[in-house]
């Protein structure tokens, strides 16, 4: 649980850190709209090049971004294969007939099982997974085995390949952008920025300050609750709960033994917090002064203007090209 990179602030110093959080939030929104406007794969490649440039200028290590992307790897692979298999437009790039016979299916299944049991010993799991898929595909495309009862067709079309790459790049860009925001902005600053951006919603009788307070309290309590969960797990482990092993039926009891104390402790904590806030005269909706006041600098205007420029370029590229 300690290795979650998404949404975590990592201290550093570069121009991204000195930007006003409002700028970063707005720029993120503008750039995201821009990414959705783009409809050509080459433009997407330009976009990713620009993101790379920003990463370099902002002194953010690519490795951290990769770690942030890793939880999404499954989603990326899924959309990629989905597009490749089902999108049948454009020119045919690759075709292979698959022969289903008892022997070939058994062999493919054997490779799959072998992969399942050996994957934990291999360092490059993704590569290993792809190689396994390739091996299964090769086995199925061989005509050696007798008793073929059905044939299938595996084909890759130009459009499918492009769309697959296109969607993958888009996802990567969006996640990278948001990781950049959360990585370089302290949660408290992020929250303050969000609050001020949402302040105009007062016209709609939505109190941005309250929402911001709710968000900041929730963010504040994530590490605390993780810590509590860890303590509960230790306490239950000393009563013989084996969180790492155990059968499915035991797993249910294990989760209950973790969740019930978790709920009780959270309720108790929120009660305590409410009392502590009231004891310090907190009243929702009353005007309050701030410890940190956001300042808008020239750099912020520049970054916002540049982001707008990129959005306009994206729109123009779509309309004109």
């Amino acid at each position, binding site marked *: 649980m300690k290795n979650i990179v998404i949404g975590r602030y990592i201290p550093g110093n570069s121009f991204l850190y000195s930007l006003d959080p409002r700028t970063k939030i707005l720029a993120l929104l503008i750039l995201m709209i821009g990414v959705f406007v783009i409809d050509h794969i080459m433009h997407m490649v330009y976009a990713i090049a620009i993101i790379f440039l920003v990463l370099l200028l902002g002194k953010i290590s690519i490795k951290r971004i990769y770690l942030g992307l890793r939880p999404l790897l499954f989603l990326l692979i899924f959309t990629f294969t989905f597009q490749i298999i089902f999108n049948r437009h454009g020119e045919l790039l690759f075709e292979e007939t698959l022969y289903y016979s008892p022997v070939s299916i058994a062999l493919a299944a054997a490779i799959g099982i072998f992969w399942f049991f050996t994957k934990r010993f291999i360092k490059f799991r993704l590569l290993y997974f792809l190689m396994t898929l390739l091996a299964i595909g090769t086995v199925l495309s061989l005509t050696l085995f007798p008793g073929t009862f059905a044939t299938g067709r595996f084909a890759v079309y130009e459009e499918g390949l492009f769309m697959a790459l296109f969607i993958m790049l888009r996802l990567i860009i969006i996640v990278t952008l948001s990781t950049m925001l959360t990585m370089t902005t302290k949660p408290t600053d992020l929250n303050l920025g969000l609050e001020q951006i949402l302040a105009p919603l007062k016209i709609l009788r939505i109190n941005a300050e309250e929402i911001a307070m709710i968000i900041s309290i929730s963010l504040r309590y994530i590490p605390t609750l993780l810590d509590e969960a860890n303590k509960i797990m230790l306490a*239950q482990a000393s*009563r013989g709960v084996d969180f790492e092993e155990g059968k499915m039926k035991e797993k249910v009891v294990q989760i209950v033994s973790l969740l019930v*104390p978790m709920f009780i402790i959270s309720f108790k904590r929120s009660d305590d917090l409410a009392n502590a806030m009231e004891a310090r005269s907190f009243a929702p909706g009353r005007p309050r002064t701030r410890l940190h006041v956001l300042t808008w600098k020239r750099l912020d205007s520049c970054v916002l203007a540049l982001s707008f420029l990129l959005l306009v370029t994206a729109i123009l590229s779509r309309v004109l090209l």
Partner: protein
Amino acid sequence: MAIKFERVSFQYTSMDNKGYLALADINLSINKTGEFITLIGETGSGKSTLAQHMNALLQPTEGRVHIFGITVDDKTKKQRKIKLNPIRKQVGLVFQFPEYQLFEETVEKDIMFGPKNFGVSTEEAAKRAEKMIEVVGLDASYLKRSPFNLSGGEKKRVSIAGILAMEPDILILDEPTSGLDPIGRNALLDVFYNIHTELDKTVIIITHDMNTVYEYAKRVMVMREGVLVYDGDPVALFSKSNIDRWNLDVPDILGLTRDLEAKFDYKFTEPPRSRKALFKALEGMLK
């Protein structure tokens, strides 16, 4: 030797990779039977971390811990060859806050949870629950109540009963008497002492109360900033130089006997360690 620490160090990992050294080069050994140990030290000195090493909840980052013939080191968890669960049946650890472990609908079910995890039959576990609830000073009427409607002290007793019902060979208690009234505190300490004397089991108590140390313990360990600075006789611990060096409180009885000795210019042949022993010694003094 039931538990043996060999040059054990433990470092907590933190976000910025600057680990926090909670235990530094600890060597100790604990017998399976006949020991009554208190573990003292300031908050944050590593007492609880040390206790969690004794039933393999934590694994040392350096060195080895031998627990009932099983060797635990930094690679144990990765290799997954050794099952750590059986260790927890033999070395029972009661955590400081009962809120972290109570979760069943009734007190009875909660006490039965531990034993059942270690393969004890439901009937046997129910029998143990009935017995242990009495041992910790509550009565059988508590068994059908919800553990969440109890007072702090009662929750504490239920959580202790939950570990006792596992019938561990060694019992470790992390501040078992914090949050209890003085009468309940003494009653519970007597319970642990009885478990120790009657069943000849080793009991380890983490505490801040020097009276407990002085009155009950046969052996005391002092932790200070992750280092085990003292391991031995409680009477010798409270010598003048040690008290100054480690900022210890003087136990009430010891303070009283020292004052008496100074005031009446008398020397107790054997310094009394409990109220009872003090009265007895006073009798001799008055004669």
